[in-house]
Structure formats: structure tokens, C-alpha cells
């Protein structure tokens, strides 16, 4: 593979859940790479498989989930070793070392991600001491330093407080501190700003960008909000029903979206210069995961599908439209054909 610079390379990731109603496909043949120091934004509606695919990167899926055998999650450790996380046993020591030490995660709801029975410090120190051979006092000092670094006021006091004693913004800062204190190479941020109000959201986004500059970790940023993604990400992956619809640099995706789904998402963003116009939602709802559409998964909601038979029968293959910009849509073949004819 040419792009060996990636710290994390996901190839053909498929994840299914066995439920009472049958086998549900949550992620279908997903591939992406994560470069050190860069941010990849994964965007999609709820139920598009964003969270599931990122949880699988640390094998944090519930026990009824299964990663398909041909999937690979190739991770390059800080020591330069390559590990296929998809093939690791759930109980392996390597996995425990990767979790937190190499790949860390921050969550949408920091209030639920901290246990109310233990102080923030207790949970941070626990993480530090799992990955570093330091004394309790040293770990405590490292935790305080990190809390200070993420902009926590009064870190010496806060470290002995419980998550429920902090405000929403402070709680998310504590969460970020507890993830970054182990200096992971990859930070997975699962909708970290969704539960926050807009001003705090902007502060947290700035903080993440600043910390990325300082520590050089790669960030995998999940959001349903394309506007947030456009602020923080270098590259974007648009997901729908567990499949990658479009992927590319953030600028080209926003300015020149190729996939009808991405185009729909961008049209749905409220714009300050078009206040008099109604918002344009994508028609329809995400179908139940038990009724996966045949052909292109987006065809029941796609404005171009009704007059094209193959949208309903054939799964589109991702095609490169620009360098690094790929989209999986049958329309793109037609465009190419048109250009050839011209």
C-alpha cells in the first residue's frame, strides 16, 4: 500500500449484530485511513453506523456484534509495530494496552462517561497507572497538569470533585483531559460537542485543534453536524446506512459534493444569507436496519434514483472524482461517460 503513513487503516470493515429479529448489518465494507496529526470527520445521520464503526476500532462493541472476518483494522503502534485490531481477542493484553494508551476516546455525554461513584481524579489516575509505571502521587500530578492544560479552572480542587459537580463544558474538558493524559496517537471523538451549547461547542473545538497541534495526535471526529465537521476536519467521510457514500478533503466535499446524499446534507444546513427560504430536508427517513435497500442503500431517498434501474439493483462502487475525493454513486459513471463522449 502506497499510503503507509496512516497510523490507522481500516479496510473492508463490516459489522453485524445478531438480534432477536435477525442479523442486522450496521457497517458494510467501510475503508478509510487516518493520518497522524490530521482530523478525519465522519458525518451521517443517526443510525448511519458512525459510532459502531469507531467503537469497533477499540473492540468496544457489545457482545452480540461481530466484525466480519475479511475486515482489517491495521494500527501502527507508537513503537512502529503493526497490529490488526480486528483480529485481536477481546481479552488480549495487547488490546488493553491499545485502549487508552494508543487510542483514546471521548464521548458525547461526559456526565454518563464518568462514574458518579468516583471522583474525576480517581478515574484519570486509574487510566494513567494502567499505562504508565508511575506512583499514585506522580499520576495525580500528571492529571492535575492535564486538567490545567485543557483550561480547567482550579485543577487541584476539581480533581477531587465528581463529574456531577461540574458544568457541561468543564465536564467535557475533564473527559478530554482524561483521554489525552495518556498521550494517545489516535483520539476518537464521538459527537463530543453535541450535548453542549454553541459557545461551549466552539471553545471545545478550538481546544481540540490546539491540543492536536501540541500533541500531534490523529483525531477521528464523529458528528451528525456537517457544520461542526467543516470547522475541525481535514478530511470527511460521509456515511449512510453503514456505507461510505463520499470521502475527500473537507473543502471539496463542502464546495463540490458529488454524492446526492452529501448534496442533500449540505442543502439542509440553515444559511444566514437565505433566511427567507424554507429548510430543505432530505425526504424520507433512514430505513430500519432490518430492511436494507437493495442496490444503492440511498436509492429510496435519492432524487435521481426513480428513473434509474441500476440504483435499485446494483451496489455502486466508489469512484475517484478528484485526487483523494471518492464517491459511490452510479451518476458519476454517467458523468464520466458524458465527458468521454464530449
Amino acid at each position, binding site marked *: 500500500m502506497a499510503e503507509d503513513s496512516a497510523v490507522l487503516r481500516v479496510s473492508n470493515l463490516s459489522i453485524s449484530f445478531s438480534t432477536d429479529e435477525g442479523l442486522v448489518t450496521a457497517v458494510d465494507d467501510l475503508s478509510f485511513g487516518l493520518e497522524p496529526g490530521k482530523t478525519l470527520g465522519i458525518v451521517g445521520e443517526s443510525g448511519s453506523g458512525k459510532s459502531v464503526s469507531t467503537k469497533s476500532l477499540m473492540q468496544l462493541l457489545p457482545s*452480540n456484534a461481530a466484525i466480519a472476518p475479511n475486515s482489517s483494522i491495521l494500527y501502527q503502534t507508537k513503537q512502529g509495530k503493526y497490529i490488526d485490531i480486528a483480529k485481536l481477542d477481546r481479552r488480549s493484553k495487547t488490546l488493553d494496552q491499545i*485502549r*487508552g494508551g494508543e487510542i*483514546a476516546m471521548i*464521548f458525547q455525554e461526559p456526565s*454518563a462517561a464518568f462514574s458518579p*461513584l468516583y471522583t474525576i481524579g480517581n478515574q484519570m489516575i486509574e*487510566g494513567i497507572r494502567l499505562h504508565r509505571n508511575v506512583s499514585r502521587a506522580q499520576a495525580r500530578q500528571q492529571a492535575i497538569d492535564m486538567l490545567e492544560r485543557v483550561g480547567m479552572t482550579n485543577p487541584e480542587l476539581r480533581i477531587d470533585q465528581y463529574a456531577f459537580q461540574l458544568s457541561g463544558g468543564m465536564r467535557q474538558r475533564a473527559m478530554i483531559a482524561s483521554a489525552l493524559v495518556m498521550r494517545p496517537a489516535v483520539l476518537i471523538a464521538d459527537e463530543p460537542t453535541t450535548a453542549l451549547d454553541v459557545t461551549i461547542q466552539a471553545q471545545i473545538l478550538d481546544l481540540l485543534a490546539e491540543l492536536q497541534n501540541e500533541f500531534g495526535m490523529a483525531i477521528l471526529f464523529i458528528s451528525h453536524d456537517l457544520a461542526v465537521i467543516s470547522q475541525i476536519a481535514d478530511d470527511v467521510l460521509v456515511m449512510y446506512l453503514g456505507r461510505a457514500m463520499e470521502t475527500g478533503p473537507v473543502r471539496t466535499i463542502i464546495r463540490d459534493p458529488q454524492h446526492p446524499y452529501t448534496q442533500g446534507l449540505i442543502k439542509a444546513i440553515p444559511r444566514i444569507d437565505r433566511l427567507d427560504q424554507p429548510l430543505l430536508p432530505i425526504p424520507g427517513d433512514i430505513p430500519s436496519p432490518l430492511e436494507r435497500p437493495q442496490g444503492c442503500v440511498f436509492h429510496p431517498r435519492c432524487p435521481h434514483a426513480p428513473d434509474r434501474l441500476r440504483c435499485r439493483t446494483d451496489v455502486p462502487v466508489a469512484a475517484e472524482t478528484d485526487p483523494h475525493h471518492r464517491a459511490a454513486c452510479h451518476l458519476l459513471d454517467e458523468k464520466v461517460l458524458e465527458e468521454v463522449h464530449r
Partner: protein
Amino acid sequence: MASNAATNEAFWRFLLGRLLIAALTLLAVSFMIYGLIELMPGDYAERELFRKYSGTGVTITQTEIDQVRAQLGLDRPFLVRYGEWLWHVMTRFDFGPAFRVETSVNALIGDKFLYTFVLVLGAMVFSYLIAIPVGIWVATRKSGWADGVVTLISYLGLALPNFAIALVLLMLNAFVFNLDVTGLVSQEFRGQPFSLAKFLDFLGHAYIPLLVLGWSTTAFQLQTMRGLMKDEMGKLYVTAAQARGLSGWPMLIKYPARHAVMPIVSTIGFDFSPLTNCPLSPRFWC
């Protein structure tokens, strides 16, 4: 760590408040029971004389009743008698005479209380020692044979009446294993003062009542623990702890189990009272 000190102080204040309320409750209950008995027609003086002379043809006169009443101090006002009883209980731990069997209440309770207490405590420790770890373990299994077996044993414990289990065990021990099943201590220790040897002998006999008393409690707590654990395992703080690299039993014990065990801890008191009041216990008294 100023906040910790504050938390500790709040904890002790809460505990002290609760103990105070418990003492007041006991006081109120004792007063109510004393009062209810007082409301009943007749008193012990009448009963004593009736017992003494029934069937002998002797006619009891009111003077005789009054005499006995004065002797026992029953002629004094209600509050004075209650006050005296309470004072003796509080200062000497003396619950007074048990007229009907002509001894004192303390002698009646005697070391039977100790045996009951050890049995109940033993049954509870035994229940929790099994219920909590097995509950945690079963909750982490995907539904399979382990869950099935544990659930079966649990429901047997809940469904079988205690006396039936006791009788079957009694029969097994008497006729199959030829063991002495007539008391909590062996013949040679009966009536002997308390000693280490007697206590050890007691422990050797105690497993039957422990099993009988503990089985259903264990079953109930185990199923509670299993259910609570399953709930807690799905919580985000568990995922977050795993994402920090914590796994296996240390993770289970520190996070989901610590949360799940709270309702169990707060109902320990409810277990204590049915076990103490268990109608079976007297059969094992020696």
C-alpha cells in the same frame, strides 16, 4: 482534600441521625406494644390465680386477686410500670420476669439468641458470598448453559418451601449418612457452658439450617444482582472505563458491580428480619 472531609462529616451526621431515629422508633414501638397489652381486659394477676386453682374447685375472691396484683406491682399506674420496665431494660438490659413459665425473659432468650444470631448472620454471609460473585459472573456470560443452571438452582431455592428442604435434608442425614440430627450441638455438649469445642461442634451441625435459611435468600439476591449487573454493563461509564484500558474482573468490580450492589446493600435489613423470624429457627434451638 477539603471536599472529602466535608463529605465524611455529612456521612457521619447522616449515620448519627439515622441511629437516633432508630432508637426513637424502638422506643415508640415498645410503648405502643405495652399500651396495647394494657388495653386488653384482664391482667396477669387474674391469669396467675386461674392457672393455680383451675380444676381444684377453689373460689377465687377479689381480695386474693388484689393481693397478687399488689405483690407483682400491677396496681400501680400504667406509666409508672412502663417507666420502670424501660429503666430496667436501659440500665441493666433486664426485660423483667416471664410469668407464664416462671422465669425471666432474659433466661428465656438466653443463648438461644446467640445461636439464632450466628445462624442468621451465617446464612446472610453465605448468601451474599455466593449471590454477589455468581451474579456478576452470570451477568457477563452470553445466555448459555451457565445462566440456565444458575437460574434453575435459583428458582428451585425460591420455589421449594423451606420446611420441605429441611425435612429432606433431615431425612438424608438421619437415614443415609446416619448423622445426629436432633440439635445444633452434639449430645455431649448439651447443657454444657459455652466453649470453643462446643462452638466448633455447633458449626458442624449448622450447615443444614444455613442451607435451608440461605438458599432462597441467595437465589433472590443472585437474580437481583444478575439483573442489575446486566443493566449497568450497558452504561457509558463502563465503555469509558474499558476505553481507558481497564478490563476483566478489576473493571467489573470497580464499575458495574459497585453500582449494581447498592440496591442489594440497602436491602440487607430486609433480609435480616425474615431470617430472624423464620419459623424454622426454633426447631434448631437446643
